[in-house]
Protein backbone atom coordinates (compact mmCIF):
# COMPACT_ATOMS: atom_id res chain seq x y z
CA UNK A 1 0.00 0.00 0.00
CA UNK A 2 2.89 2.34 0.76
CA UNK A 3 4.23 1.94 -2.76
CA UNK A 4 0.74 2.43 -4.20
CA UNK A 5 0.34 5.68 -2.31
CA UNK A 6 3.82 6.83 -3.20
CA UNK A 7 3.18 6.18 -6.89
CA UNK A 8 -0.02 8.26 -6.82
CA UNK A 9 1.73 11.09 -4.98
CA UNK A 10 4.52 11.09 -7.53
CA UNK A 11 2.60 10.45 -10.75
CA UNK A 12 -0.60 12.39 -10.15
CA UNK A 13 0.32 15.05 -7.62
CA UNK A 14 3.93 15.43 -8.80
CA UNK A 15 5.40 15.24 -5.30
CA UNK A 16 9.17 14.71 -5.43
CA UNK A 17 9.78 11.03 -4.53
CA UNK A 18 12.63 11.83 -2.15
CA UNK A 19 10.24 13.88 0.00
CA UNK A 20 7.94 10.93 0.63
CA UNK A 21 8.60 8.99 3.82
CA UNK A 22 6.23 7.23 6.21
CA UNK A 23 6.64 10.10 8.69
CA UNK A 24 6.10 12.93 6.15
CA UNK A 25 3.11 15.11 6.97
CA UNK A 26 0.75 16.81 4.52
CA UNK A 27 2.52 20.07 5.34
CA UNK A 28 5.88 18.49 4.55
CA UNK A 29 4.52 17.46 1.16
CA UNK A 30 2.55 20.69 0.61
CA UNK A 31 -0.73 18.82 0.16
CA UNK A 32 -3.84 20.99 0.40
CA UNK A 33 -7.50 19.98 0.52
CA UNK A 34 -7.72 19.83 -3.28
CA UNK A 35 -4.84 17.36 -3.35
CA UNK A 36 -6.76 15.06 -1.02
CA UNK A 37 -9.79 15.19 -3.32
CA UNK A 38 -7.53 14.11 -6.17
CA UNK A 39 -6.01 11.37 -4.03
CA UNK A 40 -9.44 10.12 -3.02
CA UNK A 41 -10.53 10.03 -6.68
CA UNK A 42 -7.50 8.04 -7.83
CA UNK A 43 -7.74 5.58 -4.95
CA UNK A 44 -11.39 4.96 -5.75
CA UNK A 45 -11.14 4.79 -9.51
CA UNK A 46 -7.87 2.97 -9.99
CA UNK A 47 -7.54 0.91 -6.79
CA UNK A 48 -11.13 0.35 -5.67
CA UNK A 49 -10.29 1.91 -2.31
CA UNK A 50 -13.13 4.17 -1.36
CA UNK A 51 -11.90 6.69 1.19
CA UNK A 52 -13.35 10.17 1.32
CA UNK A 53 -11.12 13.22 0.97
CA UNK A 54 -12.19 14.30 4.46
CA UNK A 55 -11.02 10.99 5.91
CA UNK A 56 -7.71 11.31 4.12
CA UNK A 57 -7.29 14.93 5.17
CA UNK A 58 -7.68 13.94 8.82
CA UNK A 59 -4.59 11.71 8.63
CA UNK A 60 -1.40 13.23 9.98
CA UNK A 61 1.27 11.35 8.05
CA UNK A 62 1.84 9.23 4.98
CA UNK A 63 2.04 6.25 7.30
CA UNK A 64 -1.39 7.08 8.70
CA UNK A 65 -2.85 7.19 5.19
CA UNK A 66 -1.27 3.84 4.37
CA UNK A 67 -2.79 2.36 7.53
CA UNK A 68 -6.20 3.67 6.54
CA UNK A 69 -5.78 2.23 3.04
CA UNK A 70 -4.92 -1.17 4.52
CA UNK A 71 -7.86 -1.04 6.89
CA UNK A 72 -10.25 -0.10 4.09
CA UNK A 73 -8.87 -2.81 1.80
CA UNK A 74 -9.51 -5.32 4.57
CA UNK A 75 -13.10 -4.16 4.78
CA UNK A 76 -13.81 -5.37 1.28
CA UNK A 77 -16.44 -8.07 1.04
Amino acid at each position, binding site marked *: MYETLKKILVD*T*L*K*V*APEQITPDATKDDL*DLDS*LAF*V*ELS*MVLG*KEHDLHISDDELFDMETVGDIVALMRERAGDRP
Partner: protein
Amino acid sequence: MTGLDIAVTGLGLVTPGGVGVEAGWAAVRAGRSTAARDPLLAGHEVTISCRVPDFDADALLGARRAVRLDRFTRLALVAAREAVAGEDLRTWDSARVGVVIGTSAGGGETFERQHGVLLADGPTGVSPLVLPMHLPNMVAGQVAIEFGFRGPNLVVSTACASGATAIGVACDLLAARRCDVVLAGGVDALLNPLTMAGFARMGALSRRDDPATASRPFDVDRDGFVAGEGAAVLVLRRAEDARADGRRVRARVVGYGATADAHHITNPDPEGRAVVAATRAALADAGASASDVDHVNAHGTSTQLNDLVEGRVLAELLPSGPLVTSTKGVTGHLLGAAGAAEAVFTVLAVEQGVVPPTANLTTLDPRLDLDVATAVVPRGIDLALSNSFGFGGQNAVLAIAKA
Protein backbone atom coordinates in the same frame (compact mmCIF):
# COMPACT_ATOMS: atom_id res chain seq x y z
CA MET B 1 -5.06 65.39 -23.83
CA THR B 2 -4.14 63.44 -20.71
CA GLY B 3 -0.40 63.40 -21.28
CA LEU B 4 -0.03 59.67 -20.69
CA ASP B 5 3.63 58.81 -20.14
CA ILE B 6 4.27 55.24 -18.99
CA ALA B 7 7.68 53.64 -19.17
CA VAL B 8 8.21 50.08 -20.36
CA THR B 9 11.03 48.74 -18.20
CA GLY B 10 10.69 44.99 -18.67
CA LEU B 11 9.58 42.57 -21.38
CA GLY B 12 8.64 38.89 -21.38
CA LEU B 13 7.49 36.81 -24.31
CA VAL B 14 6.44 33.28 -25.21
CA THR B 15 5.43 32.92 -28.85
CA PRO B 16 5.43 30.38 -31.65
CA GLY B 17 8.88 31.81 -32.38
CA GLY B 18 10.09 30.30 -29.12
CA VAL B 19 10.38 30.97 -25.41
CA GLY B 20 11.77 34.41 -24.65
CA VAL B 21 11.88 37.88 -26.16
CA GLU B 22 15.01 37.12 -28.13
CA ALA B 23 13.53 34.05 -29.83
CA GLY B 24 10.24 35.76 -30.64
CA TRP B 25 11.84 38.91 -32.01
CA ALA B 26 14.33 36.90 -34.08
CA ALA B 27 11.48 34.95 -35.66
CA VAL B 28 9.54 38.11 -36.45
CA ARG B 29 12.57 39.83 -37.91
CA ALA B 30 13.33 36.76 -40.03
CA GLY B 31 9.86 37.05 -41.54
CA ARG B 32 9.27 33.31 -41.78
CA SER B 33 5.93 31.87 -40.79
CA THR B 34 5.81 29.62 -37.73
CA ALA B 35 2.65 27.85 -38.89
CA ALA B 36 2.71 24.07 -39.15
CA ARG B 37 0.44 21.11 -39.57
CA ASP B 38 -0.98 20.37 -36.10
CA PRO B 39 -1.29 16.66 -35.19
CA LEU B 40 -3.83 17.49 -32.47
CA LEU B 41 -6.18 18.86 -35.14
CA ALA B 42 -6.12 15.74 -37.32
CA GLY B 43 -9.55 15.21 -38.83
CA HIS B 44 -10.53 18.86 -38.47
CA GLU B 45 -11.57 21.13 -41.32
CA VAL B 46 -8.45 23.22 -40.64
CA THR B 47 -5.34 21.43 -39.43
CA ILE B 48 -2.72 24.17 -39.14
CA SER B 49 -1.75 26.31 -36.18
CA CYS B 50 1.14 28.21 -34.63
CA ARG B 51 2.15 26.44 -31.42
CA VAL B 52 4.89 27.45 -29.02
CA PRO B 53 7.69 24.98 -29.76
CA ASP B 54 9.65 23.12 -27.10
CA PHE B 55 7.68 24.52 -24.17
CA ASP B 56 8.67 22.24 -21.28
CA ALA B 57 6.48 23.47 -18.44
CA ASP B 58 7.87 20.93 -15.96
CA ALA B 59 11.41 22.16 -16.58
CA LEU B 60 10.45 25.84 -16.61
CA LEU B 61 8.03 25.92 -13.69
CA GLY B 62 8.55 22.66 -11.82
CA ALA B 63 6.25 19.66 -12.26
CA ARG B 64 4.50 20.22 -8.92
CA ARG B 65 3.51 23.73 -9.98
CA ALA B 66 2.80 22.98 -13.63
CA VAL B 67 0.41 20.09 -12.99
CA ARG B 68 -2.05 22.52 -11.37
CA LEU B 69 -1.94 25.09 -14.16
CA ASP B 70 -3.72 25.23 -17.47
CA ARG B 71 -1.39 25.84 -20.40
CA PHE B 72 -2.50 29.48 -20.66
CA THR B 73 -1.28 30.18 -17.14
CA ARG B 74 1.94 28.28 -17.72
CA LEU B 75 2.73 30.45 -20.74
CA ALA B 76 1.91 33.65 -18.85
CA LEU B 77 4.00 32.75 -15.81
CA VAL B 78 7.04 32.09 -17.95
CA ALA B 79 6.56 35.42 -19.74
CA ALA B 80 6.09 37.21 -16.41
CA ARG B 81 9.27 35.69 -15.00
CA GLU B 82 11.23 36.95 -17.99
CA ALA B 83 9.68 40.41 -17.69
CA VAL B 84 10.89 40.84 -14.09
CA ALA B 85 14.14 38.92 -14.49
CA GLY B 86 16.32 42.00 -14.21
CA GLU B 87 14.52 43.35 -11.15
CA ASP B 88 15.30 43.09 -7.47
CA LEU B 89 11.77 42.33 -6.32
CA ARG B 90 12.74 42.75 -2.66
CA THR B 91 12.92 46.50 -3.32
CA TRP B 92 9.34 46.66 -4.65
CA ASP B 93 6.47 47.75 -2.43
CA SER B 94 4.32 44.71 -3.18
CA ALA B 95 1.11 46.46 -2.09
CA ARG B 96 1.64 48.99 -4.90
CA VAL B 97 2.26 46.43 -7.65
CA GLY B 98 -0.67 45.51 -9.86
CA VAL B 99 -1.22 42.75 -12.38
CA VAL B 100 -3.48 43.13 -15.41
CA ILE B 101 -3.64 40.28 -17.89
CA GLY B 102 -5.87 39.94 -20.93
CA THR B 103 -7.22 36.60 -22.10
CA SER B 104 -10.09 35.79 -24.39
CA ALA B 105 -11.23 32.55 -22.75
CA GLY B 106 -8.90 31.45 -19.95
CA GLY B 107 -8.11 27.78 -19.66
CA GLY B 108 -9.97 26.37 -22.62
CA GLU B 109 -7.87 23.23 -22.73
CA THR B 110 -8.78 22.28 -19.15
CA PHE B 111 -12.43 23.16 -19.64
CA GLU B 112 -12.72 21.01 -22.74
CA ARG B 113 -10.79 18.06 -21.26
CA GLN B 114 -12.79 18.05 -18.04
CA HIS B 115 -16.05 18.31 -19.94
CA GLY B 116 -14.97 15.11 -21.69
CA VAL B 117 -14.37 13.54 -18.26
CA LEU B 118 -17.82 14.65 -17.11
CA LEU B 119 -19.47 13.00 -20.10
CA ALA B 120 -17.41 9.81 -19.75
CA ASP B 121 -17.25 9.32 -15.98
CA GLY B 122 -19.95 11.52 -14.53
CA PRO B 123 -19.57 14.37 -12.05
CA THR B 124 -17.47 12.49 -9.52
CA GLY B 125 -14.78 12.01 -12.15
CA VAL B 126 -14.27 15.74 -12.59
CA SER B 127 -11.03 17.16 -11.19
CA PRO B 128 -11.28 19.44 -8.16
CA LEU B 129 -8.80 21.62 -10.02
CA VAL B 130 -11.07 22.33 -12.98
CA LEU B 131 -12.06 25.78 -11.73
CA PRO B 132 -8.68 26.92 -10.37
CA MET B 133 -7.22 25.89 -13.72
CA HIS B 134 -9.71 27.24 -16.23
CA LEU B 135 -11.15 30.39 -14.66
CA PRO B 136 -9.81 33.34 -16.67
CA ASN B 137 -8.94 35.38 -13.56
CA MET B 138 -6.57 32.69 -12.32
CA VAL B 139 -3.78 33.84 -14.60
CA ALA B 140 -3.43 37.19 -12.86
CA GLY B 141 -3.94 35.50 -9.51
CA GLN B 142 -1.14 33.05 -10.22
CA VAL B 143 1.23 35.87 -11.23
CA ALA B 144 0.42 37.59 -7.94
CA ILE B 145 1.01 34.37 -6.01
CA GLU B 146 4.28 33.80 -7.85
CA PHE B 147 5.75 37.16 -6.87
CA GLY B 148 3.66 38.24 -3.88
CA PHE B 149 2.17 41.28 -5.61
CA ARG B 150 -0.75 42.57 -3.54
CA GLY B 151 -1.99 45.52 -5.59
CA PRO B 152 -4.97 45.53 -7.97
CA ASN B 153 -5.26 42.19 -9.72
CA LEU B 154 -7.35 42.11 -12.87
CA VAL B 155 -8.12 40.06 -15.91
CA VAL B 156 -9.73 41.74 -18.87
CA SER B 157 -11.39 40.00 -21.76
CA THR B 158 -11.94 41.83 -25.03
CA ALA B 159 -11.32 38.85 -27.31
CA CYS B 160 -8.35 39.48 -29.58
CA ALA B 161 -7.87 42.98 -28.20
CA SER B 162 -7.41 41.59 -24.67
CA GLY B 163 -3.64 41.98 -24.45
CA ALA B 164 -3.71 45.58 -25.65
CA THR B 165 -6.68 46.40 -23.45
CA ALA B 166 -4.79 45.05 -20.44
CA ILE B 167 -1.87 47.37 -21.19
CA GLY B 168 -4.25 50.31 -21.55
CA VAL B 169 -5.97 49.51 -18.25
CA ALA B 170 -2.58 49.16 -16.58
CA CYS B 171 -1.55 52.58 -17.89
CA ASP B 172 -4.74 54.03 -16.44
CA LEU B 173 -4.00 52.44 -13.04
CA LEU B 174 -0.54 54.00 -13.08
CA ALA B 175 -1.77 57.40 -14.28
CA ALA B 176 -4.38 57.40 -11.51
CA ARG B 177 -1.60 56.50 -9.04
CA ARG B 178 -3.39 53.40 -7.85
CA CYS B 179 -0.16 51.47 -8.46
CA ASP B 180 3.54 52.23 -8.82
CA VAL B 181 4.32 49.21 -11.00
CA VAL B 182 2.01 47.06 -13.09
CA LEU B 183 2.74 43.80 -14.86
CA ALA B 184 0.48 43.92 -17.89
CA GLY B 185 0.06 41.58 -20.78
CA GLY B 186 -1.98 39.00 -22.59
CA VAL B 187 -2.20 35.28 -23.01
CA ASP B 188 -4.17 32.58 -24.78
CA ALA B 189 -3.61 28.89 -25.37
CA LEU B 190 -6.74 27.89 -27.24
CA LEU B 191 -5.52 25.50 -29.90
CA ASN B 192 -7.87 22.91 -28.41
CA PRO B 193 -10.29 21.03 -30.68
CA LEU B 194 -13.49 22.80 -29.63
CA THR B 195 -12.14 26.34 -30.04
CA MET B 196 -10.49 25.49 -33.33
CA ALA B 197 -13.64 23.85 -34.65
CA GLY B 198 -15.54 26.98 -33.69
CA PHE B 199 -13.14 29.26 -35.54
CA ALA B 200 -13.26 26.98 -38.56
CA ARG B 201 -17.05 26.81 -38.61
CA MET B 202 -17.36 30.59 -38.55
CA GLY B 203 -15.04 30.76 -41.55
CA ALA B 204 -12.33 32.75 -39.79
CA LEU B 205 -9.38 30.42 -40.48
CA SER B 206 -7.20 30.12 -43.55
CA ARG B 207 -7.79 26.94 -45.54
CA ARG B 208 -4.68 27.12 -47.65
CA ASP B 209 -2.85 23.82 -48.05
CA ASP B 210 0.60 25.15 -47.29
CA PRO B 211 0.93 26.17 -43.62
CA ALA B 212 3.95 28.40 -44.24
CA THR B 213 2.05 30.70 -46.60
CA ALA B 214 -1.37 30.58 -44.96
CA SER B 215 -1.11 33.73 -42.81
CA ARG B 216 -0.65 36.55 -45.33
CA PRO B 217 -1.87 39.88 -43.96
CA PHE B 218 -2.95 42.50 -46.49
CA ASP B 219 -2.21 40.14 -49.39
CA VAL B 220 -4.74 39.97 -52.20
CA ASP B 221 -4.93 36.18 -51.73
CA ARG B 222 -5.48 36.13 -47.96
CA ASP B 223 -8.28 33.85 -46.82
CA GLY B 224 -8.30 33.87 -43.03
CA PHE B 225 -6.06 33.78 -39.98
CA VAL B 226 -3.91 31.02 -38.55
CA ALA B 227 -4.57 30.58 -34.84
CA GLY B 228 -1.61 30.66 -32.49
CA GLU B 229 -0.86 30.61 -28.80
CA GLY B 230 1.43 32.67 -26.62
CA ALA B 231 1.91 35.14 -23.82
CA ALA B 232 3.50 38.54 -23.37
CA VAL B 233 4.07 40.59 -20.23
CA LEU B 234 5.41 44.12 -19.88
CA VAL B 235 6.63 45.85 -16.72
CA LEU B 236 5.14 49.33 -16.66
CA ARG B 237 5.86 52.33 -14.43
CA ARG B 238 5.19 56.04 -14.60
CA ALA B 239 8.01 57.44 -16.76
CA GLU B 240 8.82 60.09 -14.15
CA ASP B 241 9.41 57.36 -11.56
CA ALA B 242 11.50 55.27 -13.94
CA ARG B 243 13.69 58.26 -14.77
CA ALA B 244 14.06 59.21 -11.11
CA ASP B 245 15.14 55.65 -10.31
CA GLY B 246 17.61 55.62 -13.20
CA ARG B 247 15.95 52.61 -14.79
CA ARG B 248 16.43 51.51 -18.37
CA VAL B 249 13.34 52.61 -20.28
CA ARG B 250 12.79 50.49 -23.39
CA ALA B 251 10.02 52.72 -24.77
CA ARG B 252 7.03 54.62 -23.47
CA VAL B 253 3.29 54.01 -23.78
CA VAL B 254 2.00 57.51 -24.44
CA GLY B 255 -1.51 56.84 -25.66
CA TYR B 256 -4.41 54.42 -25.38
CA GLY B 257 -7.70 54.44 -27.22
CA ALA B 258 -10.52 52.01 -26.48
CA THR B 259 -13.80 51.91 -28.36
CA ALA B 260 -16.58 49.59 -29.44
CA ASP B 261 -17.93 49.16 -32.95
CA ALA B 262 -21.43 48.45 -31.61
CA HIS B 263 -22.04 46.80 -34.96
CA HIS B 264 -21.81 42.98 -35.21
CA ILE B 265 -20.67 39.96 -33.19
CA THR B 266 -17.78 39.12 -35.52
CA ASN B 267 -17.62 41.46 -38.50
CA PRO B 268 -15.93 44.85 -38.16
CA ASP B 269 -17.91 47.98 -38.94
CA PRO B 270 -17.12 48.45 -42.65
CA GLU B 271 -16.74 52.17 -42.07
CA GLY B 272 -14.24 51.60 -39.27
CA ARG B 273 -15.66 54.53 -37.32
CA ALA B 274 -14.78 53.18 -33.89
CA VAL B 275 -11.27 52.26 -35.03
CA VAL B 276 -10.80 55.85 -36.19
CA ALA B 277 -12.06 57.07 -32.82
CA ALA B 278 -9.72 54.75 -30.91
CA THR B 279 -6.76 55.91 -32.98
CA ARG B 280 -7.64 59.56 -32.44
CA ALA B 281 -7.99 58.95 -28.71
CA ALA B 282 -4.56 57.34 -28.53
CA LEU B 283 -3.04 60.23 -30.49
CA ALA B 284 -4.78 62.76 -28.26
CA ASP B 285 -3.29 61.09 -25.18
CA ALA B 286 0.09 61.36 -26.82
CA GLY B 287 -0.41 64.98 -27.77
CA ALA B 288 0.43 63.92 -31.31
CA SER B 289 -1.16 64.34 -34.70
CA ALA B 290 -1.75 61.72 -37.37
CA SER B 291 1.28 62.94 -39.31
CA ASP B 292 3.56 62.13 -36.34
CA VAL B 293 3.05 58.36 -36.70
CA ASP B 294 6.10 56.64 -38.15
CA HIS B 295 5.08 53.01 -37.85
CA VAL B 296 1.99 50.87 -37.25
CA ASN B 297 1.98 47.30 -36.03
CA ALA B 298 -1.42 46.54 -37.52
CA HIS B 299 -3.96 44.08 -36.21
CA GLY B 300 -3.62 42.62 -39.74
CA THR B 301 -5.18 39.22 -39.17
CA SER B 302 -5.09 38.01 -42.79
CA THR B 303 -8.89 37.85 -42.94
CA GLN B 304 -10.67 39.53 -45.82
CA LEU B 305 -12.75 41.87 -43.69
CA ASN B 306 -10.28 42.96 -41.01
CA ASP B 307 -7.45 43.80 -43.36
CA LEU B 308 -9.68 45.69 -45.76
CA VAL B 309 -11.32 47.84 -43.10
CA GLU B 310 -8.14 48.39 -41.09
CA GLY B 311 -6.10 49.12 -44.19
CA ARG B 312 -8.60 51.70 -45.42
CA VAL B 313 -8.73 53.38 -42.01
CA LEU B 314 -4.94 53.57 -41.83
CA ALA B 315 -4.69 55.01 -45.35
CA GLU B 316 -7.35 57.63 -44.70
CA LEU B 317 -6.41 58.56 -41.16
CA LEU B 318 -2.63 58.57 -41.51
CA PRO B 319 -1.92 60.25 -44.87
CA SER B 320 1.75 60.65 -43.99
CA GLY B 321 2.11 56.97 -44.90
CA PRO B 322 3.68 55.29 -41.86
CA LEU B 323 5.40 51.99 -42.49
CA VAL B 324 2.87 49.30 -41.62
CA THR B 325 3.55 45.71 -40.67
CA SER B 326 1.58 42.76 -39.41
CA THR B 327 3.68 40.39 -37.39
CA LYS B 328 0.84 37.84 -37.61
CA GLY B 329 2.37 36.69 -40.89
CA VAL B 330 5.05 35.11 -38.71
CA THR B 331 3.33 34.32 -35.42
CA GLY B 332 -0.19 33.65 -36.59
CA HIS B 333 -2.96 35.22 -34.55
CA LEU B 334 -2.18 34.86 -30.85
CA LEU B 335 -5.76 35.78 -29.92
CA GLY B 336 -5.83 37.26 -26.41
CA ALA B 337 -2.04 37.44 -26.38
CA ALA B 338 -1.80 39.20 -29.74
CA GLY B 339 -2.16 42.77 -28.53
CA ALA B 340 0.47 42.35 -25.82
CA ALA B 341 2.93 40.43 -28.00
CA GLU B 342 2.56 43.04 -30.72
CA ALA B 343 3.08 45.81 -28.17
CA VAL B 344 6.36 44.07 -27.29
CA PHE B 345 7.31 43.91 -30.97
CA THR B 346 6.43 47.59 -31.31
CA VAL B 347 8.57 48.48 -28.29
CA LEU B 348 11.46 46.61 -29.89
CA ALA B 349 10.87 48.28 -33.27
CA VAL B 350 10.90 51.71 -31.63
CA GLU B 351 13.91 50.88 -29.45
CA GLN B 352 15.99 49.41 -32.26
CA GLY B 353 14.77 51.60 -35.12
CA VAL B 354 13.64 48.76 -37.35
CA VAL B 355 10.30 47.75 -38.78
CA PRO B 356 9.89 43.96 -39.06
CA PRO B 357 8.44 42.43 -42.22
CA THR B 358 4.98 41.18 -43.01
CA ALA B 359 5.54 37.55 -43.95
CA ASN B 360 3.88 36.20 -47.09
CA LEU B 361 2.81 39.58 -48.45
CA THR B 362 3.35 38.90 -52.14
CA THR B 363 0.76 41.18 -53.75
CA LEU B 364 -0.81 43.98 -51.73
CA ASP B 365 -4.60 44.04 -51.96
CA PRO B 366 -5.08 46.63 -54.72
CA ARG B 367 -7.89 48.26 -52.76
CA LEU B 368 -5.35 49.35 -50.12
CA ASP B 369 -3.05 52.35 -50.41
CA LEU B 370 -0.56 51.33 -47.72
CA ASP B 371 3.19 51.21 -47.33
CA VAL B 372 3.61 47.71 -45.90
CA ALA B 373 7.04 46.40 -44.93
CA THR B 374 7.97 43.11 -46.62
CA ALA B 375 11.54 43.05 -45.33
CA VAL B 376 13.31 44.42 -42.27
CA VAL B 377 13.39 48.19 -42.79
CA PRO B 378 15.73 50.36 -40.70
CA ARG B 379 13.79 53.45 -39.74
CA GLY B 380 13.96 55.96 -36.94
CA ILE B 381 10.66 55.69 -35.09
CA ASP B 382 9.56 58.41 -32.69
CA LEU B 383 5.92 57.31 -32.49
CA ALA B 384 4.25 54.01 -33.39
CA LEU B 385 0.77 52.58 -33.06
CA SER B 386 -0.14 49.01 -32.17
CA ASN B 387 -3.66 48.07 -33.22
CA SER B 388 -5.81 45.34 -31.73
CA PHE B 389 -9.42 44.49 -32.46
CA GLY B 390 -11.64 41.76 -31.05
CA PHE B 391 -14.79 39.86 -31.93
CA GLY B 392 -17.71 41.77 -30.57
CA GLY B 393 -16.28 44.97 -32.01
CA GLN B 394 -13.87 45.80 -29.19
CA ASN B 395 -10.94 47.97 -30.23
CA ALA B 396 -7.71 49.00 -28.50
CA VAL B 397 -5.01 51.20 -29.96
CA LEU B 398 -1.72 51.82 -28.13
CA ALA B 399 0.62 54.68 -28.97
CA ILE B 400 4.24 53.80 -28.20
CA ALA B 401 7.03 56.37 -28.29
CA LYS B 402 10.78 56.35 -28.16
CA ALA B 403 12.22 56.42 -24.63
